[in-house]
């Protein structure tokens, strides 16, 4: 009787485990290699850094020209945030972006729409409290004439502990 009960329970448990583990791919480790970045990686790394530098220097016009009017930011367990509201926050005196690193950037080329994925590590504070960490970001950029503008951002915090690489670290392929 006990064994008869145990078997179906074990089957269900194994099935649940397998289906659960099948939801996410196995995370491959980073290979040590130094890449020749694609032209899009060069362009969008520069644009992402321009945005972050504009935030650092409280440059409203510099930041606005990189963001589309209907831009929104989406985060887990939250309503979409209009980029206008986000800009008000990050350009305010309450928010301080001290340092940042953009790494592991890749671009899916859709001609007039580019999907840009990267890791962002930053040291920052909001109203005097530490607000930095490591973020996984997916940005959708749309062509606007000759320029690119941020249309959507999907962002998730990976860690609250920012790991800032020291200068002249051995390249790992992450850069």
């Amino acid at each position, binding site marked *: 009787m006990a064994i008869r009960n145990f078997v179906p329970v074990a089957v269900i448990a194994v099935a649940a485990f397998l289906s659960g583990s099948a939801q996410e791919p196995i995370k491959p480790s980073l290979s040590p290699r130094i890449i*020749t970045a694609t032209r899009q990686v060069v362009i969008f790394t520069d644009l992402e850094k321009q945005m972050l530098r504009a935030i650092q220097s409280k440059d409203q016009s510099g930041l606005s020209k990189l963001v589309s009017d209907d831009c929104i930011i989406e985060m887990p367990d939250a309503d979409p945030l209009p980029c206008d509201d986000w800009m008000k926050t990050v350009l305010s005196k309450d928010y301080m972006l001290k340092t940042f690193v953009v790494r592991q*950037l890749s671009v899916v080329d859709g001609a007039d729409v580019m999907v840009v994925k990267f890791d962002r590590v930053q040291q920052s504070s909001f109203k005097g409290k530490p607000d930095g960490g490591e973020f996984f970001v997916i940005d959708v950029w749309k062509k606007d004439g000759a320029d690119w503008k941020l249309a959507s951002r999907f962002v998730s915090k990976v860690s609250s502990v920012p790991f800032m690489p020291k200068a002249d670290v051995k390249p790992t392929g992450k*850069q």
Partner: protein
Amino acid sequence: MKSFQAKIRFASVLLFGVLSMNFLAAQSMRPGVGGDTSPDGHLPGGAAPVRQPAVVQGNGINYHGGPVLQGNPVPIHIIWYGNWTNGPKASDSAVTVSLIEAFLASTALGNSSYEAINTTYGDNTGNVSGHLGFGQAVFDNYSAGTKVRDAALAGIVSRAMTAGLPNDPNAVYLILTSSDVNETSGFCRTYCGFHTHATINGSDIKYAFIGNVDKCPTGCEAQSTGPNSPAAGVGGADGMINVITHETEEAITDPDLNAWFDASGNEDADKCNFKFGPTQIAGNGSHFNQTFGGHNWLIQMEWENSRGGGCDQTLGGPFFTN
């Protein structure tokens, strides 16, 4: 009294010995003793080269203690992976094979004033020679399939050695894939190529992956029609040549990923990625910025580790920002 004189004598002998050793050591440390050197460190008239100081810092790129490849020339071996006879793109062809092997010849890129820029890099035993040469090539008929992972590349190199390539830790191996092959770690999305090293068949082997960039021309080609394109829009060979240049320069100056790179992790070629400097127009309307080996080429500039550092097209030439 005698004892005091003996101490003086002993101290004098000791001082003489120390000064003599310092003098001899200073002679061996003096750079360039024995004659004037040309900018690339070679004596005019074919005399034996005189090594300039091997490690020069302060030019926007830093030395981290690892070795460089000093071969004269550095052999470049090629593994043609996939279908290089009649693949899906027009550039998956014998024409591309022939052009790339000609580009890497010791009489072409290997002896160019462009390659001489690499002589500004060195390690604690000497400088890069500034010479490379095409070694040997083998063809690999999809031994790891059409979806190739990073981990499979060492196996491809190992099989190429079994097929005839030498086992040479002082060479650079290029794995060049046809357009139907996808390197799954980010070819065309993140990179156009990369270099690394691994222990293969007991040796520290330096190798690079470069795919046929006709797979993603907007990401990895400077122009869709190159100076050597057999037809308009068939720019894969010229585009690959640009990436090959990038990877070979870096594999020579940072073969084990512990020699030359800057504070951001950028190696010498990374600092000039897709920056070409002034160009000229070829007969087919394409741009080029180098002529050697009987062809015109469009290849990115290289970071010169002297004169404060900058991107240039030839050793000692003017620096350009784009």
